């Protein structure tokens, strides 16, 4: 789907409650992240196959998501099951939304970019975490990660399996999952271990964003 194979974060799991959806981007591609009423999360192309409306603007109905525009309903398998204008129509399987392999780990929803048969599992093990916040940064992912590693001492780098950093920041171990939103935009998903001071880490993360956006490598142009 995107430029480099691997697992990428797209949302904090707690931010997507059952029955809700949100839109995001990965390498510029628009995705809908939604959670059905049974608690399962899904990451799909954010585009209704009918008229191209963003599905993230739609409504979750049980285990389906319905497009805001004409109400086409798609089941958890991505297949259109109901078209309100043609209620008796047996909708063919060819009317479907592109889905991507996704999973939840460390309190983060991850999507796999590439051939899903080689997806494995997202990085980070099974540690219990608590969400802090997601932050958008106006800087490319590469320079954001480089600057992050200057700002805080690196404890663990997940390596090739995904953009996950574990840092020691303001006296707390902090996990930061890096989402390459677009060419010049990055989203950081911050989680901490239970018992950590989330407010302190949140303020640290906000200050970090100011630092990252002030980096001279932003947009490849020296400020």
């Amino acid at each position, binding site marked *: 789907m995107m430029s480099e194979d691997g697992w990428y974060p797209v949302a904090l799991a707690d931010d997507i409650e059952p029955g809700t959806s949100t839109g995001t981007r990965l390498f510029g591609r628009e995705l809908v992240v939604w959670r059905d009423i049974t608690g399962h999360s899904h990451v799909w192309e954010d585009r209704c*196959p009918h008229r191209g409306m963003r599905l993230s603007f739609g409504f979750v109905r049980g285990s389906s998501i319905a497009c805001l525009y004409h109400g086409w309903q798609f089941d958890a398998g991505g297949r259109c099951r109901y078209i309100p204008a*043609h209620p008796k*129509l*047996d909708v*063919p*399987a*060819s*009317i479907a939304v592109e889905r991507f392999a996704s999973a939840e780990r460390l309190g983060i929803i991850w999507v796999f970019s590439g051939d899903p048969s080689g997806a494995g599992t997202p990085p980070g093990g099974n540690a219990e975490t608590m969400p802090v916040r997601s932050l958008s940064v106006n800087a490319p992912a590469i320079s954001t990660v480089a600057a992050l590693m200057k700002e805080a001492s690196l404890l663990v780098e997940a390596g090739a399996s995904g953009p996950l950093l574990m840092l020691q920041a303001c006296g707390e171990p902090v996990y930061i999952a890096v989402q390459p939103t677009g060419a010049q935009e990055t989203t950081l998903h911050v989680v901490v271990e239970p018992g950590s001071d989330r407010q302190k880490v949140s303020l640290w993360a906000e200050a970090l964003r100011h630092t990252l956006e002030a980096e001279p490598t932003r947009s490849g142009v020296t400020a």
Partner: protein
Amino acid sequence: MREAATIKFSGTLDPARFCEFLDHRARRLDLDTRLDGVGSEAVTVTVEGEPDLIDAFEMACSLGPANCLVREVERCAPALSRDAT
């Protein structure tokens, strides 16, 4: 319930691009198609499938790809297949 219809799209068409467009929409709507005539002024196609989806196909193709302008859509009875008696 499957039905068949023959639809003639007339206008200013890029035949290759328009046929590619038809084929894509037909596959999306799970319709079988047979091209009966292809030209820069008209393309005639016989489609078979769910009636509602044939209507959707007609509507979608009346918009056409960016470099084609459909001025008229005419629906006629499907042509008899070769082995029909």
